[in-house]
């Protein structure tokens, strides 16, 4: 059953207000979603006044500034800080993105930071992505071929076939797209979601893979695939500029024409 409102234990309360102590005139208010499993309270929004002059250019820099200087208990995932690892995916200013490549100067007014939408919160900005990882495993994201048994040299691919993977192999599985998709919010257990379907397409379209038909058959399911209604939130949010909506449409087209 689709539930549009948040459950009772997830309703957001007003949290603490941390005033800026530097006396700077260049202040940005940053609202951050907070929840800790050790407290039995509902999640809350803490507001931090941040001196932008003494802060790096990205949203992740703001989070580090808060963690280092104001509240060390703030929890978020991050690793590379260059938009390559996909750890710091979160909802910034209403759109899912990687906080390490999002400039806070692009955002007018207050800055709102939430965890990725419609996930079980582990702590603060960290959401539980285990369902998504299980679904990723279910599309068997590895090369399936028997050619390796017959020969000891590498399996070659023409430049045209290699080009078919462009726009798909770059996916870093940050889950920005899947967690932006309303269909995935309502049917997350059954619908695979844009990220996993893009990965599925990446292996379906790989010329070296020998199980294309089996892969297509596996994904051809009313719930797994056809819950995509081309809402396009996925493509709008992808921080790597990829197009999951197109990948899903390509799978649908392959199924319709094969």
């Amino acid at each position, binding site marked *: 059953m689709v539930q549009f409102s948040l459950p009772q*234990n997830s309703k957001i309360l007003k949290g603490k207000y941390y005033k800026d102590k530097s006396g700077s005139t260049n202040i940005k208010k940053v609202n951050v979603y907070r929840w800790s499993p050790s407290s039995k309270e509902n999640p809350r929004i803490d507001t931090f006044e941040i001196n932008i002059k003494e802060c790096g250019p990205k949203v992740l820099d703001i989070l580090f500034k808060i963690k280092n200087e104001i509240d060390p208990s703030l929890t978020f995932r991050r690793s590379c800080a260059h938009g390559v690892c996909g750890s710091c995916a979160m*909802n910034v200013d209403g759109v899912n993105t990687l906080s390490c490549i999002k400039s806070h100067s692009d955002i007018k007014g207050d800055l709102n930071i939430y965890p990725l939408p419609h996930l079980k919160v582990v702590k603060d900005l960290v959401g539980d992505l285990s*369902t998504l990882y299980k679904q990723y495993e279910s599309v068997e994201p590895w090369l399936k071929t028997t050619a390796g048994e017959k020969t000891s040299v590498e399996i070659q691919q023409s430049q045209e076939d290699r080009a078919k993977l462009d726009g798909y192999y770059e996916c870093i599985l940050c889950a920005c797209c899947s967690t932006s998709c309303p269909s995935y919010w309502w049917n997350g257990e059954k619908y695979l979601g844009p990220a996993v379907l893009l990965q599925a397409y990446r292996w379906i379209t790989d010329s070296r893979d020998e199980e294309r038909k089996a892969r297509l058959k596996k994904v051809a399911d009313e719930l797994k695939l056809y819950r995509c209604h081309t*809402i396009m939130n996925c493509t709008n949010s992808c921080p790597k500029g990829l197009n999951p909506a197109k990948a899903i*449409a390509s799978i649908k087209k392959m199924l319709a024409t094969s």
Partner: protein
Amino acid sequence: MENNNNPLSPHLQVYRWHISSLLSITHRIVGIINFLSIITILFLLILIGPDKNFFEIFSRTFIGKFIIISLCWSFSFQILNEIRHLAWDMGYGFNLKVSRITGIATIFGSFVLAILFYFIGKNII
């Protein structure tokens, strides 16, 4: 899932609307309205027969005009957005810029088409 008592992160409450998502939900709502209105119109036709008087008097009242113009718009909107969906099904128009342009075109086009339908129905054009 292990942490079933953990809160759910906000979704609809915080997610920003894009033209594409707005048109998608409008398409659904309008689809249901059109579906119901076709049934209602057909039922009316069965019940009162092709009584021209009823429809003419109805179309002169304010509510009648409002309903007729609204339906002109809802049908035009769905026709145009459905063309968009057909193009998507054939694999075209997924580029972000293109989808935004076709989205805006659908909104404007739906109003133009609605006015056109209304005037054609009124025998003005």
